[in-house]
């Protein structure tokens, strides 16, 4: 299973298997492949504030 990442600000978990379709990230997208300007859909934190879950 691919590595999940969790937002340090609000606990939102990015799961590559699920992606984030509502933000235009299709299921199967690896963390590394998400654009750098993507932000947490829950609280708006940048990618740099996510940690491996």
């Amino acid at each position, binding site marked *: 299973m691919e590595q999940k990442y*969790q*937002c*340090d*600000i*609000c*606990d939102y978990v990015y799961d590559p298997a699920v992606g984030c379709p509502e933000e235009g990230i299709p299921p199967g997208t690896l963390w590394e492949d998400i654009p750098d300007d993507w932000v947490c859909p829950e*609280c708006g*934190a940048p990618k740099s*504030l996510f*940690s491996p879950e």
Partner: protein
Amino acid sequence: MTQTRDLTSITPGNLQVGMYVVLPSGWLDHPFLRNQFQIKDPDQLKKLQDCGFENVRVDLKRSKLPKRPAEDAPTESANEAAVLDPKLCDDLPQWNPDNLVPEQLLESLHDKKIPPEQRSKAVYSHSRELMNRLLESPTAENLKASKQAISSVTDLILSDDATAINMLRITDHDFYTYTHSVNVGVTSIMVAKALFGQSDRHDMHELGAGFFLHDLGKVNIRQEVINKPGRLDDTEMRHMRTHPYKGFKLLEKSGQLSEESRIIILQHHERADGSGYPKQLHDREIHIYGKICCIADVYDALTAERSYKKALQPFEALKLMKAQMADHFNKELFERFVMLMGGIPR
């Protein structure tokens, strides 16, 4: 004994703890803030019996009486069962706006005849009970009800120096979030009072609520993390550090605090040197309300006992903050804080 509709009229001598009384007149005629309430303890019963009423109406359906169905009328001998059976408390409703605010808090807030020392003790301990209940049931309606009570506590702190200073002297230092909430609330309001004086540019009621509710987000932190005896590991710490945002969102959804006041909840762990969380803001980016709460929060954490450390005395806490944490705080604000806290007679 006469019965009218659902109310039963009985003599004061036959009242007992657990009865839900409906007083005959306006609140000017008795020392209680509400006209209808459940008698909570023998003290309150005695106070009620001393009011000089000939009869008091009791709503038996809303009463919680030991060893008898609520529909039964009490008899002369009912007086023997003066204390509410704790087992009967199990079916009491969860906290709601009707029972959230302790009756004694309202009474001690409004009774100006109580000496400052006694009044501060009563307001402090019943404020803790209020926060305890609120953190158990943090619904939007309860937040609204608590906000009104906190406004009255804020007014007392702003208007009555003797009582307010005494509240700071008697603070408890256990590890409960509700105790910490009241300590930080009272301390922060005192700091805001010293800084802002009579300026009408600051809504002190909103501010007071924000200070008391600064740790509200902890209701959404896992219990095993909140109650862990000892230091948190990295994962637990990351989870714990989400509480400012979670509290901020909870209040935003409830619509109960102004935007400016919600910032207190979001920013109370930000530090002037950018080493705080959640956003690692720097001094100039942190709202003054967030800075006030941050200093009060650290001070209370240091003077409180934890499973992994002893409580520091006020002076030791201030010394440690100056020696080791000076970069965390706005310098000017910290100096004001030291002057304020250092000036309180112990």
